[in-house]
């Protein structure tokens, strides 16, 4: 790593002020699992790093009414170890569990995953399904961006230069006693230390009598330039009985809203086939978490 000025501000206000002063010369670092790798590859493209690691105001998980406030600098290990998240947002725990490795999860943060905006970012599909709201801070003030508006292209988020993601606000899917559960699955060549060939998250809400799916959210990664909500699958599931048949129909509907491509890691046709498989399996796991056993063919 070349000569770089490394700043460890003591507060968010100080971090924002530093960035405003240093401008494009400086980059924010949360866990460092992207920034430090870019530094190693000599692709950092800046002379200063502003570390957000020590900022307590960006850390931790707390509940405000029916909304979970997830600090952006909360590490993936902390997400994984959080019993409340496992119980109410298992779709997010599923993703944290299969990211990187123990060494990565101990430093990598949820906010860093969002702001890196990689098409393969594993927490992004769960956060899309949970309709998380990104809270961004800058010297001018704060603003909110819905997860569905957060990604503009590969590694390009809607955050402006100088903005810091402070936390994600997630309305609990189980708020008001609703029966809701989700699941996330990732396809990769190795079980650990690998990027997703594709990944997919499902969150389902049952009708009050449990006889049908009242609301469905489905999102997938590496199926286009950004992680995407899959509207056809959501429509196919909404109003359907919670059965394997409904999941199969949702899987068949997939593909129109995607732009699946060949890459050096995986052929497009395989991604497309496996997207349908993951959709059914993740849907089945979500239903299983709601106490509904379904057998999926694939």
């Amino acid at each position, binding site marked *: *790593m*070349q*000569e*770089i*000025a*490394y700043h*460890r501000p003591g507060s968010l206000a100080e971090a924002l002020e530093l960035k405003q002063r240093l401008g494009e010369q400086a980059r924010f*670092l949360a866990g*460092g*699992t992207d920034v*430090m*790798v870019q*530094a*190693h*590859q000599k692709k950092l493209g800046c002379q*200063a*790093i502003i*570390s957000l*690691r020590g900022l307590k105001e960006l850390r931790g998980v707390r509940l405000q009414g029916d909304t979970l406030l997830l600090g952006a600098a909360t590490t993936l*290990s902390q997400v994984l170890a959080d019993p409340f998240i496992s119980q109410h947002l298992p779709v997010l725990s599923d993703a944290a569990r299969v990211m*990187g*490795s*123990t*060494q*990565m999860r*101990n*430093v990598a943060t949820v906010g860093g995953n969002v702001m890196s905006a990689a098409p393969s970012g594993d927490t992004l599909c769960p956060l899309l399904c949970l309709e998380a709201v990104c809270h961004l801070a800058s010297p001018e003030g704060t603003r909110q961006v819905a997860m569905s508006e957060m990604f503009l292209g590969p590694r390009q988020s809607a955050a402006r230069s100088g903005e810091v993601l402070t936390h994600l606000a997630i309305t609990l899917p189980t708020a008001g006693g609703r029966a809701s559960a989700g699941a996330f699955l990732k396809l990769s060549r190795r*079980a*650990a*230390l690998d990027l997703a060939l594709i990944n997919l998250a499902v969150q389902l809400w049952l009708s009050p009598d449990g006889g049908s799916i009242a609301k469905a959210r489905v999102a997938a990664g590496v199926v286009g330039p950004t992680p995407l909500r899959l509207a056809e699958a959501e429509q196919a599931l909404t109003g359907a009985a919670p059965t394997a048949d409904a999941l199969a129909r949702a899987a068949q509907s997939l593909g129109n809203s995607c732009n699946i491509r060949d890459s050096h890691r995986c052929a497009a046709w395989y991604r497309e086939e496996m997207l349908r498989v993951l959709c059914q399996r993740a849907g089945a796991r979500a239903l299983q978490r709601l106490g509904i056993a379904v057998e999926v063919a694939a």
Partner: protein
Amino acid sequence: MKRDMEFMLNGQPVRVEARGGQTLLQLLRDELGLKGTKEGCGAGECGACTVVVDGQALASCIYPALEVEGASVTTIEGLAAPDGSLHPLQEAFVKHGAVQCGFCTPGQIMSAKALLDANPHPGEDEIRSALEGNLCRCTGYHQIVEAVKAAAEEKP
């Protein structure tokens, strides 16, 4: 940019001058002469550089040196007793043939140490999960998992 900083290294306070662009791995190997921690990939993907910071295993090759100010860092050099007798994990690695070329071994042992400190009696799944960030191209992993299990069983 250079800065004087203090941290605990293998139980002893140290004071060093760290540079802004320096990784913890470079600080340990090049400034402090602790060559037990290895550089494999340099990008956090192989685990050879694993050290324990405040109880957590992490990849020192992508961890900024200045971030350990005030922290407690344990490297492979911190495991053996002052009289040279090996740590139970090191003994178990020797006994179970968990070392072949040896390059990944310090990282494997540090990952295992962080696991056993937090969870003295892990199941095999927990061991495999804790070691999933440590690549070994020799042993096929079986002996490593057996060694960690054996060290865990020895713990009171």
